[in-house]
C-alpha cells in the first residue's frame, strides 16, 4: 500500500486538527423551517399546519430594493467590502470570487417591457446572495459598444470586440464571498443570466497587500 493513516500524519504545520472543530451557528430561521417540515409530515404531536416560513413576499421585495440601493452605494464609493458594513456570517473561511457575466451570441437580451422583469430577476439574485452573507459588490458594464486593445507595432490596435454578440461581450461582474469553488459555483449557477443564454465565468479573487498611496507615501495604518 502506498501509505496508511499511521505513516501519513495530519500536516503538523496546520496545527492540531481538533482546534478546527467548532460548532457553527445555524441560521435562526432554520429551526422554524425544520419544525414546519416535521409538522407538515405529521411528525410532531399537536401540530398539523406549517409555521411561518421566512420573510413574507413583501419583505423580500423591500429587501431586494434595499439591496440594490446598497449595491449602488457600495459601487459608487468604490468599496470592495460588504455594503452592509458587517462581516459575512459564513462560518467557514471565505474567499472572494468574481462572477463575470458574458453576453455571447446565445444571449437573449431583454427588450421593452421585459426590461423591468429582467431587472427584478437579477435583483432577487442579489437579495438572496446578500441574505446569505455572500454578496460583496456588483459592476454593471455598458454593452452597446466595447473595444479590445491588442499589442501591435507602433501602438495597440483597437478593435470593436466586446460588443453584444461577440464572444468577449461582458455585461457585468459580481463580487461574492464563498468558502470554496463548490459554493462559488453554486451561487453562480443560480444567476438568471444563464437562463437567458448568457455565460458566467467564476474566478477566485487573489488577495493583495496594496494600500492607498497618499502624497507618494503608503498611508499609515497604525
Amino acid at each position, binding site marked *: 500500500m502506498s*501509505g496508511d493513516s499511521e505513516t501519513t500524519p495530519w500536516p503538523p504545520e496546520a496545527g492540531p486538527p481538533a482546534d478546527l472543530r467548532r460548532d457553527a451557528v445555524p441560521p435562526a430561521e432554520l429551526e422554524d423551517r425544520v419544525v414546519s417540515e416535521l409538522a407538515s409530515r405529521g411528525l410532531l*404531536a399537536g401540530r398539523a399546519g406549517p409555521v411561518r416560513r421566512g420573510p413574507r413576499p413583501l419583505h423580500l421585495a423591500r429587501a431586494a430594493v434595499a439591496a440594490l440601493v446598497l449595491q449602488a452605494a457600495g459601487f459608487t464609493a468604490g468599496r470592495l467590502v460588504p455594503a452592509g458594513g458587517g462581516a459575512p456570517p*459564513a462560518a467557514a473561511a471565505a474567499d472572494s470570487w468574481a462572477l463575470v457575466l458574458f453576453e455571447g451570441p446565445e444571449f437573449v437580451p431583454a427588450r421593452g417591457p421585459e426590461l423591468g422583469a429582467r431587472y427584478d430577476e437579477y435583483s432577487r439574485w442579489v437579495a438572496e446572495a446578500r441574505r446569505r452573507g455572500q454578496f460583496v459588490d456588483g459592476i454593471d458594464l455598458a454593452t452597446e459598444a466595447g473595444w479590445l486593445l491588442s499589442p501591435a507595432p507602433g501602438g495597440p490596435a483597437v478593435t470593436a470586440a466586446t460588443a453584444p454578440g461577440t464572444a468577449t461581450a461582458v455585461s457585468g461582474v459580481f463580487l461574492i464571498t464563498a*468558502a470554496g469553488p463548490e459554493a462559488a459555483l453554486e451561487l453562480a449557477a443560480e444567476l438568471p443570466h444563464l437562463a437567458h443564454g448568457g455565460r458566467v465565468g467564476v474566478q477566485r479573487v487573489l488577495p493583495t497587500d496594496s494600500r492607498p498611496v497618499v502624497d507618494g507615501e503608503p498611508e499609515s495604518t497604525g
Partner: protein
Amino acid sequence: MPNPAEPPAAALLTRFRASRSEADFRALYRAHTPRLYGLALRLAGGSRRRSDELVQETWVRAVERLDRFAARSRFETWLAGILVNCHRESARRWAKRLLQFDPVRQPEPVEPAAVPPVARIDVERALADLPAGYREVVVLHDVEGYTHREIGELLGIEEGTSKSQLARGRTRLRRLLDGSRKTNRGERA
C-alpha cells in the same frame, strides 16, 4: 461547557421520544444542531444553502426513524451518519448538474521544505478543496474525532478503506497547503 440550567442531551432525547412535542423537539434541535451544522458546512465545502438543506433533511429523517435508534452509538454519531448519507445523496445530485465543471485543480507536488505554520483560513480552504471522498474521512476522523470503526459504519466502508482514504486525504491536504503557502509567498514577494 454544559449549562447546568439545561437538561443533558440524553434527557432531551428521552423527553422528546416520549412526548413528540414541538417544544421538546426544539430543545433537542438546539442541543445538537450547532455541531451538526459545523459538520454540514465542512462536508458541503462551506455552502450555507446546502448545509441548511442537509441539516433540515437530517432532522426529518432522524425524527422519522427515531424508533429505530437503539442507542448502540451516541445520538450525535447517529445524527452525523444520517447527515453524511444526506450529503452523499445531495453530492451525487449536484455532480450531475455540474458535470462539465472540474473546479479543483491539483497543484503541482512540491518538495518538502521548511514548513512554517499556515493560517487557519488556509487549512479551511484546503479542506474545502479536498475531493469529497477524502474530505469526508479527513473531517470525520481528524476534525470530528470519529474512529475508523465509526467512520466505517457511518460511510458503509471497511475500516481499512477509511484508513487508506485518510492517508490519501492527508497527503492531498498537505499538497494543497504547500500550494497555498507558495501562492502566499508569491503574492508577498
